[in-house]
């Protein structure tokens, strides 16, 4: 057994940094706390890479599969003989992969924010929250059991809430943070119900026990049925509900676009690369259970992913706020990952989808963080989020321009950039198991290329906007992370994921399937070409096209009125017909009862005051009477 106990430090370092900068941050210079946070993250990154290298290569026995191992575990709460809540560190291919993703992106964001947030009044607070988030995310990734994951799951929710509402003087930011918290919290209720059902049926929270082929979860395959689905299928659908909330899947996605009110580095870290893929990670974590005992739940995952990705891609084509375009693009790409998991089988080449989903998670983290940080640099330069205020920026922001272009090409899926490989694997997996979903995804691939290049041309080409002051390139602290992430976006596609991260831990042969790859590249290029024709120069064709689609365009522009549907459901239906009566009942019956109790307590407290007279004779009298009453009850009456 190889010793990995040091991995405990990986989540603990950001936690200590959080406590330190959170408690003492206001006494230091702002930059000091930023540097402390960045140094801490640097150490975390080094440890994570070391762990990845050791786990995947140096400590790995050639030919053997990758097994999961517990580097550390303590029992935290003892519920019953069998059921305990533990805290620990679990290492397996997906958690080690996530370590690399989280630490890399977080580290980049830490460096980037040194420049981006400079001079902001809440600089120290910002870094404290970033560390808190990183701690929570790493704890989530390394969780050994589903309950620990739930604890950290809520903690990332809280830190996301804090960071979205970072500019708390701005009412829109406050509203967005509340919205994000409430929507994900609502989804987490499903997650909690799922956890309780799972643990009730299997008597364990532990991931290793849950996914073991001979474990108690697998024995539940038949199980009692409700509405035609077995108990464990329902449990897993509820668990997925939590994942869908956090990963902004349709119809629980409405918080993500609003979450862009947070500082841009936060959007890059939390709402693009790490927290929002937690749902994907959750499904991947429980994948053997989904795959073996609840294929119906897996179908739900696949279809939710597919619909979300199409839905979001269409909306992305119509938005003008660059961060919102990216937000919908994130949702669309996560839909891809969910779909990949959903169509996957277990073991060997059947597990292609599993591998592809995780692969895409990895590459997406790189290029989407790059896009967001690039967008941050642009916003930094022109002080606006709206692409209609931009244009011709390629002359002013050369580094941002190049890296942004690389990211756009990557997400469009052009070879040999990383997005091509991961997206191609997903399409292949869908092609072999679910034709309707494949067609959807194929269309989304084209749409993705179109809206990304619409964004690219509107920012960097197009009309030559006159700015109040000449936009200038961001400082080195911001451009260096862009370059590093661009490197990752270009080359991470060459990582041999099919040997490293597979559903059963064993490597399999993966190769490019030209029947799928060539059409998907072609449709990507088609999307780029259309976007080039329409947006490279100022023209009337976009407006014409929009008119051509008529009301469909208006619908998409208004995000298919999802927010309005939610508002209608909550304000008109739930508030009027459920909350009002409940509130009435609460105010008159429940409160009345409580007031009655309070009154009775108050009165009786007043009445029994007489016992506390201070007269020792009376105390003795009460004492002896008490004994006698007990004797009468238990000797004579009982």
């Amino acid at each position, binding site marked *: 057994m190889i010793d990995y106990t040091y991995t405990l430090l990986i989540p603990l370092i950001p936690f200590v940094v959080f406590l330190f900068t959170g408690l003492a941050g206001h006494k230091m210079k702002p930059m000091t706390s930023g540097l402390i946070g960045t140094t801490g993250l640097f150490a975390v990154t080094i440890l994570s890479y070391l762990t990845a290298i050791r786990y995947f290569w140096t400590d790995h026995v050639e030919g053997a599969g990758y097994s999961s191992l517990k580097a550390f575990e303590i029992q935290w709460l003892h519920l019953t003989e069998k059921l305990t809540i533990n805290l620990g560190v679990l290492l397996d291919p997906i958690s080690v992969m996530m370590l690399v993703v989280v630490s890399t992106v977080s580290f980049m964001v830490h460096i980037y924010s040194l420049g981006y947030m400079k001079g902001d009044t809440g600089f120290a607070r910002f870094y404290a929250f970033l560390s808190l988030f990183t701690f929570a995310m790493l704890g989530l990734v390394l969780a050994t059991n589903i309950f620990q994951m739930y604890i950290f799951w809520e903690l990332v929710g809280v830190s996301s809430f804090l960071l979205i509402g970072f500019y708390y003087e701005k009412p829109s930011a406050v509203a967005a943070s509340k919205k994000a918290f409430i929507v994900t919290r609502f989804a987490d209720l499903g997650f909690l119900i799922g956890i309780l059902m799972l643990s009730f049926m299997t008597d364990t929270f532990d991931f290793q026990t849950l996914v073991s082929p001979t474990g108690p979860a697998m024995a539940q395959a038949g199980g009692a049925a409700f509405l035609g689905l077995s108990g464990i299928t329902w449990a897993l659908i509820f668990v997925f509900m939590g994942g869908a909330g956090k990963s902004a899947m349709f119809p629980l996605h409405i918080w993500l676009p609003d979450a862009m009110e947070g500082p841009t580095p936060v959007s890059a870290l939390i709402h693009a690369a790490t927290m929002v893929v937690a749902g994907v990670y959750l499904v991947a974590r429980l994948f053997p259970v989904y795959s073996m005992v609840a294929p119906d739940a897996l179908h739900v995952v696949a279809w939710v992913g597919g619909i979300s990705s199409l839905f979001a891609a269409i909306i992305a084509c119509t938005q003008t706020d660059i961060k919102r375009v990216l937000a919908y693009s994130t949702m669309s790409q996560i839909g891809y990952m969910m779909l990949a998991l959903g169509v996957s089988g277990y073991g060997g080449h059947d597990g292609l989808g599993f591998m592809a989903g995780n692969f895409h998670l990895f590459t997406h983290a790189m290029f989407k963080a790059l896009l967001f940080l690039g967008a941050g640099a642009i916003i930094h330069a022109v002080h606006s989020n709206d692409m209609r205020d931009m244009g011709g920026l390629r002359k002013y922001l050369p580094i941002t321009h190049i890296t942004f272009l690389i990211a756009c090409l990557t997400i469009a899926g052009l070879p040999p950039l990383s997005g091509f490989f991961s997206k191609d694997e997903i399409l292949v997996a869908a092609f072999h198991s679910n034709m309707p979903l494949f067609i959807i995804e194929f269309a989304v691939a084209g749409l993705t290329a179109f809206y990304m290049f619409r964004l690219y041309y509107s920012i960097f080409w197009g009309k030559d906007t006159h700015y109040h002051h000449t936009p200038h390139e961001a400082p080195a602290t911001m451009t260096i992370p862009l370059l590093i992430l661009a490197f990752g976006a270009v080359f991470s596609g060459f990582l041999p994921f099919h040997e490293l991260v597979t559903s059963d831990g064993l490597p399999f042969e993966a190769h490019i399937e030209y029947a799928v790859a060539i059409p998907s590249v072609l449709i990507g290029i088609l999307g780029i070409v259309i976007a080039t024709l329409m947006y490279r120069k100022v023209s009337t064709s976009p407006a014409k096209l929009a008119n051509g689609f008529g009301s469909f365009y208006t619908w998409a522009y208004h995000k298919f009125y999802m927010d309005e549907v939610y508002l209608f459901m909550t304000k008109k239906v739930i508030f009027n017909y459920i909350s009002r009566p409940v509130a009435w009942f609460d105010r008159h019956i429940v409160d009345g009862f409580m007031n009655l109790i309070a009154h009775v307590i108050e009165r009786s*407290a007043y009445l029994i005051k007489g016992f506390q007279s201070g007269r020792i004779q009376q105390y003795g009298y*009460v*004492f002896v009477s008490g004994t006698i009453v007990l004797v009468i009850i238990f000797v004579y009456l009982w």
Partner: protein
Amino acid sequence: MRHELLLTAIALILLVTDIMLKPSQKPRIIPVAMVLFSIHTIAGFFPAQEGILFGGMFRATPLISMMKNVLNVGVLIILLQSYTWLMKEENRDKMSEYFILMFSTLIGMYFMISSGDFLMFYLGLETATIPMAALAAYTHHQTKSAEAGVKLILSSALSSGILLFGLSLIYGSTGSIYFSDVALFYGTEPMQVLAFLFFFSGMAFKISLVPFHLWTADVYEGSPINVTSYFSVISKGAASFILVLILYKVFFQLIDVWQEVLYIISILTMVVGNLFALRQKNMKRFLAFSSIAQAGFILLGMIAGSQLGMTSVIYFVLVYIFSNLGAFGVVSAIEAATGKINMNDYDGLYITNPKLSLLMMLAMFSLAGIPPVAGFFGKFFLFTSAASAGYYWLVFIAVLNATISLYYYLMVVKAMFINKTETPIATFRSDGMTRAGLILAGLGIVVVGFWSQVYEFINSLSVGLLY
């Protein structure tokens, strides 16, 4: 025997030292006592020899050592917190008495917990009680303190009488006073039930269960505050330990009876304790009554009659020691510095003394049982053990009472953090000893909650304890 011998030796050393010291040198006794007692506390944690002495009158097991260690930790914190008060002018001449009396009662508790028969048990009980009356009357120039001493001695005489009556009936019905023999011959005949009830009343007096609690309010209020914390924490803890041991070991044939008795008494205690605590404005009386309600919760753990019950009681007492001493420590520090003792004196304390307020908040949260501090887990395990024995209604009532208690604990927090006042208590800095005592209590509140090994360790000692 290590605990007993060592502490007796310490008490004697202090007595002799005190005689040799000139009046002006009296304060030197404090560091001597502190150092010796710290050594004693640490020494207690080393594994001791197990076994039986004096033909079964004295027993030593790891569980019993653990109980004594829990008490030691509490006493250590109290001694640290007493420093400022002891250094006052009026206490200088007799400060060694404070240590010697306290150690004597502690020795009595050791013997009580270790006892293997009712004679040793009774001797321990009285050794623990009589010096306590002297402690209560420590500041005898104050009428209230003298009154407290007298009231304690009078009412404990009454309770001892009834307890002894019960013990003699036990001897009469079984022909033995050894726990192991009594356990064998004990049944559910009326006289035996009667004997048990008398015994129980005597113990209920010590733990201040309703309706045997009336002495507490006056005694707690009259005694010096550090003595009050000693009564409400250490004395109550020790009595709970021996009660749970005797219930489980000696009266297990009677389990149906004592479960019913505990059922009634615990509900009474929680409700009445809460009702009284609700109205208190004096912090000392407030803590005294809230500690009565806490004793009701302890019964909840005992009622299960299982290993879980035993573990949860010991764990809860440990948690309770830290939480209550945290609260008492703050009250005592403030009283020593400013003489203020009412709840509305605490208005705006957070502005002037943030650290004290934070510790007080932790202690209040822990006493109220708010996660994630230790008090939550203490209550959680008590409730679990009662629920696992099927007492769902009792748990329900206990949860209601915990909610009521939340109200008055939060009143203190509200006073410190929210209430505004023109004249808050001025910023002050306690001396090092007091601060050490406060920090120790605060650490305990946090660590014992998070560090689950403590619970697991106690649980491992409770294995095989039953029957």
